């Protein structure tokens, strides 16, 4: 098990106290049972489909990952080196659990799968991501997505 106590003290303190915008609202969107939900993945692993432009530094925008993407096509361009990559190297589902969602959709536990999934660069200031995240919400709605699983690294 890896917990903050397993990390160098300076890194643990920085992660635990990472600044996040103070929000005035506490949105909490409800929806139908899982078996009628359309589920998408939004990752912060700096994922990029091979051949597309990697996320650089602290880019605030995102990359699209079509549901037809195969494991051999997905890379991570995250700037941080302070997380394990060997799990993702062996099995993309560790970070991008598309196969698990496909299985849950096939057995009827969830309604369906988004046509496209997305990734940001998690090292970016969230305030700079905001306009891109709100624009992404429009794309997700166009795809009838009503549930998003947020996958960090």
């Amino acid at each position, binding site marked *: *098990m*890896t*917990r*903050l106590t*397993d990390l160098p003290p300076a*890194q643990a303190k920085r*992660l635990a*106290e*990472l600044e*996040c915008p103070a*929000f005035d*609202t*506490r*949105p*909490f*969107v*409800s*929806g139908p049972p*899982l078996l009628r939900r359309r*589920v998408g993945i*939004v990752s*912060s692993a700096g994922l990029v489909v091979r051949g597309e432009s*990697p996320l*650089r530094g602290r880019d605030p925008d995102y990359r699209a990952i079509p549901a037809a993407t195969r*494991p051999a096509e997905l*890379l*991570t*361009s995250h*700037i*941080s*080196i302070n*997380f*394990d*990559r*060997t*799990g*993702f*190297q*062996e*099995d993309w*589902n*560790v970070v991008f659990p598309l196969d*698990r*969602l496909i*299985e*849950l959709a096939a057995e009827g536990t969830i309604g369906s799968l988004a046509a496209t999934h997305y990734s940001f660069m998690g090292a970016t200031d*969230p*305030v700079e*991501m905001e306009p891109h995240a709100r624009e992404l*919400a*429009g794309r997700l*709605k166009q795809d009838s997505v*009503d*549930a*998003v*699983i*947020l*996958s*960090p*690294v």
Partner: protein
Amino acid sequence: MSALGHYLEEEGIATVAISLIRPQTENTKPPRALWVPFELGRPFGPPSAAAFQRRVMLAALRLLERTDGPVLIEDFPEDDPRVRPDPGWRPPPLPMAGPTLADRLAEEIDALQGSHARWMARRGRTTIGLSGLDMPEIGRYVSAWLSGTAPASPREGYSAILALRFAVDDLKAYYLEAAACDGAPSSRQLGDWLWNDTAAGTAVIALRAFGLASDDDRLKAVLGNFMVPAVRVAMMGLSTG
């Protein structure tokens, strides 16, 4: 991640976040989060463990059906079994050391080809590819930096420093994938081998030292912060600048 969830929820889309750092999640108060006791980089737990990953996924998705929010933070109860070392794992053999670090690096890259081919046959994928360079080119580019002056970028559209960062990411991926061609090594086993036993580890540590000693602030920041993981800097007692 919590901020992204907030923005999406404000736009009317329900979210559930995997949390790897519980204090951070408690601080940011997302609508729904499942804290998992896994190492950073493994939000859904162990690789090649579909049943385990499915339990994580379902535990997270079930939070979407709860109505007693906002701010639901649940804990996933299982640990990642792959943090345990594989006692049968052995790293791939490395060649006898050449006269210089550049020689050693080139020889290792060549010697690991067979192991990496076995990895490809076993896993059907590689995460190498950010730099757009092949492995011998990556070895030469890293070695050129170690000669003491910044070489020109080998890739149009990438600065020399960005090309180096991506080349080093690819170099690490090549070694770690090659080393995991057999068995089920833990990330710690793989990291110990890379950083303690290989010319690649030595070269990347030297790049970090080169950056930290530079008068160029960008070089100092990129090579100082994005070459050697903080946990290795601490374990190896490396200078922090």
